[in-house]
């Protein structure tokens, strides 16, 4: 059973958008901060554009559970179009939150959430990514929004640690580090709570 100090996050994205990578980055950074972590994807048929799910558990104790997450504290939706086809709020805890990549406001998006009455957060990750990186990589801004909303990691430490992680991840493409750092910061500033 998930212990009380454990935060569970479920990611919904489409194959190719980097939801899995964001999930893995979160696990890595939380681990750097001394937490026990899990980051794992759930694969259906592997193809670009197909819905994929990824999961994070972040805790003060090692977690032995290796099932998927059915009652998440937070849900991150990397692709707005999934709201029409996937039950993204399924099992989401009442005091949790859903974070959606959309230009719409929380108030505008709420009617599409199957009667979900809890916290809704929105962030225009596509625009931020296109403005800063020049193309649509919504995963890093979504990761920043998830960290900001959940408070699972302190924002300042998160930014410092993820820069280290990027240096490893983008060792072959160091020009991507600065842009990705900028998208993270911008996303943390712009995420809207509703």
């Amino acid at each position, binding site marked *: *059973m998930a212990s009380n100090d454990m935060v569970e996050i479920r990611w919904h994205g489409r194959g190719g958008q980097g939801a899995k990578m964001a999930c*893995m980055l979160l*696990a*890595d950074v939380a*681990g*750097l901060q001394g937490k*026990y*972590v*899990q*980051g*794992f*994807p*759930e*694969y259906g048929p*592997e193809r670009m554009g197909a819905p994929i799910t990824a999961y994070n558990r972040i805790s003060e104790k*090692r977690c*032995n*559970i*290796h*099932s*998927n997450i*059915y009652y998440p504290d937070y849900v991150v939706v990397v692709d707005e179009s999934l709201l029409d086809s996937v039950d993204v709020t399924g099992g989401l805890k009442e005091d949790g939150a859903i974070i959606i990549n959309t230009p719409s406001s929380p108030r505008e998006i709420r009617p599409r959430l199957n009667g979900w009455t809890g916290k809704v957060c929105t962030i225009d990750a596509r625009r931020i990514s296109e403005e800063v990186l020049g193309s649509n990589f919504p995963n890093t801004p979504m990761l920043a929004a998830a960290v900001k909303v959940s408070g699972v990691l302190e924002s300042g430490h998160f930014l410092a640690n993820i820069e280290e992680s990027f240096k490893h991840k983008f060792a072959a493409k160091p020009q991507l580090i600065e842009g990705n750092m900028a998208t993270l910061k911008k996303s943390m500033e712009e995420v809207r709570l509703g």
Partner: protein
Amino acid sequence: MSHRLSGNEAVAYALKQINPDVMGAFPITPSTEIPEQFANYVANGEVNTEYVTVESEHSSMSVCIAAQAAGARSVSATSSCGLALMYELLYVAASCRLPITLACVNRALSGPININHDYSDSMGARDSGWIQIYAENNQEAYDNFIMAMPIGEHLSVRLPVMSCMDGFITSHAVENIELLETDAVRSFIGEYKPENYLLKKENPLAVGPYDISPYYMEHKVQEAEAMKAAKARILEVAAEFAKISGRSYGLFEEYRMEDAEFALVLMGSSAGTAKAAVDKLREDGVKAGLVKIRVFRPFPGEELVRALAGTRAVAVMDKSEGFSGSGGPLFAETRSALYDLKERPHMINIVFGLGGRDLKVEDVEKVFGRLANIAVTGEIGPLYTHMGQRSKEEIV
């Protein structure tokens, strides 16, 4: 060293630390990242392994056999259909007494084609003469891989070792992991010094020739004796490993079994999920426990008898369907092991999780509920059932 790695990354890193002589490499999901990551180490000059890319798993295992017979330490990684394509060679490797190490990232074996986890691939190879060791998580996948060579290469054993982890659940999940220093790994593994090998000019020999009936049976008996001897060696190596890592391993892990009345026998990552169920039931006063099989070949039958002797009811949970018509392979072995026990616990078999069907903590609690019921009524109900499928009404 404290890190975060997936199971595949952990084994690739172990391989880098070991720096084997030869790798026979052919990719297949979900083990692909192992040869992929290791190829980077080769390309960067961080190891001096002869990395042989081939056109199939039949050839990757053939490469390992030829290299190991020549006196080189060789490794490979595979999954599912890849293991099936190696099938003939698995027997050749074992009967030639070549201690090759294979990372088996378990995945359902076709058909229907499926990329997710169950044990139908390695369970099919359980009688091939390979030692089989199973990991619960990334840490165990790393540790088991490092222990494989000192086990397999020992003179009393000389058998190949399959170091198994759960596809995706372990292979693709990033978790915390403690890594050993490379120097410690290398001195733990030592140098591979086979007694005889093809390139030893003082003692030319043939490897794998036709074995006529007057000799064949003697060779198979020797192989069987080696498998029996492996048990003691596995424990010796585990004791040595504990000294450098602080982590202890046995043939299986007993979790809260001291006074357990109801027990599960299962393997791999599912055991982790089941531990959470055991903890929860213990809080409610239920005397639940579990035995996680780490070493399936050789099968720790006598030791299991001791572990399960005090229980009232046991559920053996198989994550592969053996099509025996009377239960999965883990059940058959466990039940047989307990035959000589005078006061046997009630025992049932549950086949679950095929093709990656998820096992939840609640599912495990239901199994314990059934065991409690069996203990009260003395009736086991159906001996062998499936759990989690939608087509039939569940019995659990």
